[in-house]
């Protein structure tokens, strides 16, 4: 019952690590729960959950796990009762039984806690660690006479299946886009130059001038280093971009909260860039600006970041009057605008939310990929894109 809390929390998507679980163990060992289920609830929430956004999930799991337990109860009894439950469903030979020391319940609990403390990663089939299928007394499907079942499925169903449901998927930065990770990736969008008032002591220069002054101290100051990067973001909205609302909005949030940028402008377009760009995502034509004006206003040092799936009808990209909205037709084909943008800005990149495997299958994506360095809209892709915007210039293809 006790450990179910841990595993069910993880199943619910609450990020609880072994370290937090151990903290709770320690708290219980110190008697912080005071023998009351309510206080146990408080301390387990305080130690296991680190964001109020998971409180709801925690409550649901807690009530599911401790359903039927009413009022005050002694958690020690609970733990002991749980320890008392031997799972000897696999026949051990007499020899093995003799080999494995019989542990008293208290010792077992102590060892269990110690083992947990020693354990840093999951372990299968060992002799000592908590894991599955081992001969250690602690763990799932153990063969020890006084063994403890540690979560997982009971009986002989393979617990491996339960445990190994790609549980490390959440760690993959090439698939997920966590807000914090995105921000960290964007942090490298930085070119530091000294501007502003000279108020930072320049030690090297001070030593130099002081030496030239024959030891008479002369303080030299210099300006602080500040970020010089100006970023223009052009975003494709609507249609095929709708499924990617989540990652795109996270990128936008991260960019808006990135206060380090010297200047940041964002405009929207639909499918392809033509003679007008929009200030709002609803593409209100009263809030539009001629693309040419934007090019005139922003110099070549601005970094261009385009977010879009680059997948459209070839006519929308290549033909004059290609705009999908018949009211907005213009005689310059989209590809020409893309060329203009690419020529105007020294550095530009394209972030594509579509899976990289699909790029080669779309005609327009292939064309645009030849024009702009294209990266996948993921944490890794953003890092690479930032590198392409800031780092040493490499030739495309």
């Amino acid at each position, binding site marked *: 019952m006790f450990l179910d809390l841990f595993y069910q929390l993880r199943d619910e998507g609450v990020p609880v690590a072994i370290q937090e679980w151990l903290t709770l163990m320690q*708290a219980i060992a*110190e008697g912080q729960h005071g023998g009351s289920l309510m*206080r146990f609830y*408080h*301390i387990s929430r*305080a130690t296991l959950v680190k964001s109020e956004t998971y409180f709801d999930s925690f409550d649901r799991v807690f009530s599911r796990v401790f359903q039927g337990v009413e009022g005050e109860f002694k958690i020690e009894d609970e733990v002991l009762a749980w320890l008392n439950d031997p799972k000897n469903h696999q026949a051990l030979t007499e020899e093995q039984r003799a080999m494995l020391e019989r542990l008293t319940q208290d010792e077992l609990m102590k060892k269990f806690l110690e083992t947990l403390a020693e354990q840093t990663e999951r372990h299968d089939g060992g002799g000592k660690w908590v894991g599955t299928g081992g001969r250690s007394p602690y763990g799932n499907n153990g063969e020890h006479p006084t063994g403890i079942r540690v979560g997982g499925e009971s009986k002989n169903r393979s617990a491996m299946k339960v445990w190994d449901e790609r549980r490390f998927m959440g760690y993959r930065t090439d698939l997920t886009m966590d807000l*914090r990770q995105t921000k960290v990736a964007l942090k490298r969008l930085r070119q530091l130059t000294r501007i502003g008032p000279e108020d930072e002591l320049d030690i090297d220069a*001070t030593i130099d001038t002081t030496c030239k002054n024959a030891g*008479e101290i002369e303080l030299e100051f210099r300006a602080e280093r500040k970020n010089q990067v100006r970023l223009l973001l052009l975003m494709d909205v609507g249609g095929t971009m709708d499924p990617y609302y989540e990652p795109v909005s996270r990128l936008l949030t991260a960019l808006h909260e990135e206060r380090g940028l010297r200047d940041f402008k964002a405009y929207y377009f639909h499918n392809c860039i033509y003679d007008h760009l929009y200030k709002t995502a609803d593409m209100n034509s009263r809030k539009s600006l001629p693309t040419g004006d934007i090019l005139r206003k922003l110099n070549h040092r601005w970094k261009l970041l385009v977010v879009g799936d680059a997948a459209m009808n070839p006519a929308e990209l290549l033909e004059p009057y290609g705009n999908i909205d018949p009211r907005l037709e213009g005689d310059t084909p989209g590809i020409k605008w893309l060329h203009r943008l690419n020529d105007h800005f020294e550095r530009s990149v394209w972030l594509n939310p579509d899976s990289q495997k699909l790029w080669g299958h779309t005609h327009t994506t292939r064309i645009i990929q030849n024009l702009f360095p294209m990266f996948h809209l993921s944490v890794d892709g953003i890092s690479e894109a930032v590198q392409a915007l800031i780092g040493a210039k490499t030739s495309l293809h």
Partner: protein
Amino acid sequence: MSENSEFFRFRGTEGYIASEPLIDAVNCALALEKPLLIKGEPGTGKTLLARHVAEGLGMPMESWNIKSTSKATDGLYVYDTVQRLNDARFGDGDVSDIRHYIKYGPLGTVFRAENRHVLLIDEIDKADLEFPNDILHELDEMRFDVMETGDEIVAKERPVVIVTSNNEKELPDAFLRRCVFHFIEFPERDLMKEIIDVHHKNLDTTLLDQVLIKFYWLREQEELRKKPSTSELIDWISVLLRGGITVEQVNEHIPFLGALLKNEQDTEAMQRFDEAGGDMPKAWSDLGPRYNQ
């Protein structure tokens, strides 16, 4: 250990009404010697909590107010090179010993102190993204080195660390994992009455009811950009009492709205509501089911 943890037990103080979960979380953090991370709406008393934990435990408090420019090393120590250079030039002070020019930050001060301190790291989310990671090691080990002198500063008494966050930025996982977490919920009606009682003794109960009805109703209004918080409610009651406002006046509308709403658009929205002849609630039953259990 158990004697110790029994000795340092927080039960709330006269000036601070703490809810049960909060008391448990504070005591848990005390017993485990882990930092306590407090989140919650602005004005729910996050910073105040640290002050009262210190008071309740009879420990001195040191606060470290984090700003966007704060660096982790600022909390440890600063080596004042310019001062030393100046002293060397004019022959003031003892220049031969670098230690005279090491100025300790809040963390350094608390580590060096003879008695156990409460250390408040206020609004940690204001700082740079990497900031929490940078102080992880020092908080874990409770020691750091002064590079210039090679001195090792080890905490004589492990301080009680309280960290507050307004949720402006996500905190790194490694940092979160080491903390005990508590989210200060917005106080419910009964707890709020206790809180008000601490600040305004023996308030007329009918007035208190009317004030709370208006207050909770305001908080329910979707149009408001910034919901009034506990600290604003307490200020508002002070203003009402000083202005000699009667129960009837509070019954009909909300006097001194400026004490509750700090945003021009919000005040205008309420004025529009008044002009449109909107109906203010007068009894608890006018509010939703949450308040009528």
